[in-house]
């Protein structure tokens, strides 16, 4: 099968969906003329013209809020918020407007919008250009949250997001944009709320998201040499969350580790931990382990940054320690 990058896969999804449905349109900062800082929107302006592909001023609150207004009146906006950190600038529009407009108006409106945002601690980034803040948005009902980890998933999930009649937050890890993977030429979509077992194993269930999926898979190889066979599960969407797949795996392994790049306190791992102990407590042989970024603002210096973000080595070490406990 052909291999393309994560960014190209996203770009294909946008081209295909905008071709399929003329109500779909996209805007964001620097997305039209230069095709986005992350090169995800390349070629859209040429193909679909300036009405459907728009550069916006630096106005995140308007960008996110306008998507709600557009969505409730019959179009299907896609918004690029350059850095996930900037979602804080339009928090009200995402958390109160997008997520709740349908409910508080008794189902009068559908809110089919997608907010794409890049995230993650990568070279040169620090506190306000590096966060994985998806957990913040998990706290409100009304919004779906997607965390693709491969080019294949990026394309299929983005197509599903665009067709969904609800607000969707779509987080693209910046370290993944240039990673390559197999993506078929044929049309496909990937359903929300369905986890994938990336690697089978009997000893420990490892739930990982976004960039942490590949790090966990690398850790799996190292651990195998030590005789530890982990099962790696990628939920792909954290809202809706395929908790059943996680429960089933924990029933088999008796151990759960969650690996995420967001902060530890109030994180995705905390929520999965709570759910699993509610659901399958009796099957757990050891305490649930969370491997996450440390609870500090992400520092600029690489030496410091590497202490904060979970590495493959760290995942291996922590899992070995857990087994020895």
């Amino acid at each position: 099968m052909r291999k393309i990058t994560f960014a190209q896969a996203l770009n294909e999804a946008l081209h295909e969906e905008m071709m399929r449905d003329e109500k779909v349109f996209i805007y964001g900062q620097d997305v039209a003329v230069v095709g986005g800082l992350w090169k995800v929107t390349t070629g859209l302006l040429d193909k679909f013209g300036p009405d459907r592909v728009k550069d916006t001023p630096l106005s995140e609150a308007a960008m996110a809020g306008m998507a709600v207004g557009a969505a409730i009146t019959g179009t299907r906006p896609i918004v690029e918020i350059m850095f996930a950190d900037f979602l804080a600038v339009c928090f009200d529009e995402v958390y109160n407007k997008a997520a709740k407009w349908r409910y508080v108006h008794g189902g009068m409106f559908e809110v089919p919008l997608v907010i794409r945002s890049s995230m993650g601690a990568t070279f040169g980034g620090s506190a306000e250009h590096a966060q994985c803040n998806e957990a913040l948005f998990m706290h409100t009902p009304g919004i779906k949250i997607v965390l693709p980890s491969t080019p294949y998933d990026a394309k299929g999930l983005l197509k599903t997001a665009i067709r969904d009649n609800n607000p969707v937050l779509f987080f693209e890890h910046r370290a993944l944009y240039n990673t390559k993977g197999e993506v078929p030429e044929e049309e496909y979509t990937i359903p929300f709320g369905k986890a994938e077992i990336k690697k089978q194993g009997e000893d420990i269930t490892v739930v990982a998201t976004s960039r942490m999926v590949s790090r966990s898979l690398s850790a799996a190889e190292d651990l195998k040499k030590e005789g530890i066979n982990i099962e790696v599960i990628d939920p792909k969407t954290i809202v809706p969350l395929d908790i059943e797949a996680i429960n089933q795996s924990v029933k088999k392994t008796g151990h759960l580790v969650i690996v995420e790049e967001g902060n530890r306190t109030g994180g995705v791992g905390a929520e999965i931990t709570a759910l699993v102990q509610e659901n399958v407590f009796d099957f757990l042989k050891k305490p649930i382990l969370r491997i996450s970024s440390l609870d500090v603002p992400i520092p600029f210096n690489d030496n410091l940054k590497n202490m904060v973000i979970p590495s493959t080595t760290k995942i291996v070490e922590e899992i070995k320690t857990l087994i020895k406990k």
Partner: protein
Amino acid sequence: MNYSGGFLQNMYVNLLKARMLEEKIVELYHQGRVPGSVHSGVGEEATFVGGCLALNEDDYMMTTHRAVCANWTKGIEINKIFCDLFGKKEGTNCGKGAAIRICSEKVLGMSGTQGGVFVIATGAALSLKLLNKKSVVLAFFGDNTSNRGTFHESLNIASLWKLPVIFLCDNNQYGISINIKDSTSVENIADRGVAYNIPTKIVDGNSILAVYEATKEAVNHAKSGNGPYLIEAKTYRFRGHMEGDQRSYRTREEESQWMEKCPLRRFENKLLEQGVITDTWIVTEKNKIEKEIENAISFAENSIDPGKEDLFKDIYA
């Protein structure tokens, strides 16, 4: 402008309905029959009704917490309005959004965080433009809400992209307790339009014809593809920010000066003078409206509450 007698009578009836609705809501509140707070729009009805009447049926509107009466003008059934006031299942929002969030396909609802209106109305206007619809969005907002950043972001984009949205400020001089002089760096909200290259108009918000005409002009402007318009209607909140507010921050003299300019009485006197309406006609209309309101109240009070089956409904489509 010259208007037919029928047109003026219709305008008067809408204004009267708005006043009677607003007064009834206050009365119900003080009888303990409203399960929530009431932000009365008494005194500002000419702004809300006049603006709304300038719209066609296929135009869109967004209200504020103080513009409940405009929903009736826009054609939402009075039964539903009272159901929403009481949080009943048969309302427009199924007991989930209160009277402030009365909605319809064309009434896009209200943002509980003040300032959401600007971005949502602007986005709706963008949508209409993309869909080649010949409609506009009329967004009501309060003077103090123009101090939110969303106002400035939205006006800039609406102007830049020439979107068919009309921002209509009901400048009632106050945001809860703060006077506009203490909250706002410019004398007029309309002064802010120039910063965004948006045409503006200041009107007497207690003159229903003045608000109507300004809004009509703005609608034509927007429908001709010329982009947004900012209207400031100078008016006054007769009552407190919400029922129960003791209004310690202003004087009774100031209030009575404004009450002299009551928008309903002014329009009524004018039409009586012109012979467009008569006292007996007014009494007949009042009785009709009174009956309509009483029927709606009893419909709403006797209708059911939303239940368990509604609780998780409509979180997602």
